């Protein structure tokens, strides 16, 4: 009885090692900062829209409201990301070393 036949099919295939990227992209911190800046821009735009509306410069109401909605949604996006980050940080701090 020959049982050696089965062995070759079980040899694991060599996994190609991933080639690291030559030029590193922007770091996590940079991405976060630019996202926060974008959210801040939306907040400032909404503030300006309300100011224009109050001083009679705005042409219509819905543009003011849309600026508010954009600021609101982008801020919610930021706060959700922040909550998740803090949660992950706490998770790591709770880890037994």
């Amino acid at each position, binding site marked *: 009885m020959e049982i050696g036949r089965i062995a070759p099919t079980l040899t694991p295939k060599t996994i190609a090692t991933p080639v690291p990227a030559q030029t590193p992209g922007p770091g996590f911190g940079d991405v976060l900062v630019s996202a926060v800046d974008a959210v801040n821009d939306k907040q400032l735009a909404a503030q300006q829209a309300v100011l224009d509306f109050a001083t009679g410069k705005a042409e*219509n109401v*819905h543009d003011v409201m849309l600026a508010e909605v954009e600021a609101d949604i982008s801020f919610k996006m930021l706060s959700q990301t922040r909550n998740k980050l803090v949660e992950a940080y706490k998770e790591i701090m709770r880890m037994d070393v």
Partner: protein
Amino acid sequence: MSFDSVFSSLNVSGSGLGAEQVRMKAIAENIANANTTRTPEGGPYRRQRVIFASVLKDTMTGRSAAGVRVAGVLRSTEPPIKVFDPDHPDADKTGYVAMPNVSVPNEMIDMIAAARSYEANLSAIRNFKTMVSKALSILR
């Protein structure tokens, strides 16, 4: 980083709101001038019509919708309505007055249509907000 692509559908609905507002203004002007017999151009007031055109934006993946814009406000070419009123200062020799070609009932119907279209754009915005809020709650 910018959120422009995230809010693109919001801007499309916003342009719809603006367009309906222009249409509403034209209808209001038609109703206000339903009995106007004197205009700077001479003759009776002529009904205004708003023409809409779709806006396309060039993007990386081809052309995509970017909303609606008002292509122009045109004057109706329908002839004025002749009303027999010899006492009217603007009556011609035969006693007929050229009145604006505005039909107030038709304008009221157009006004309802404009208001409903405005509401449709508003509910598109409301649904977009709900969709995004639901997506954000994935992280929760």
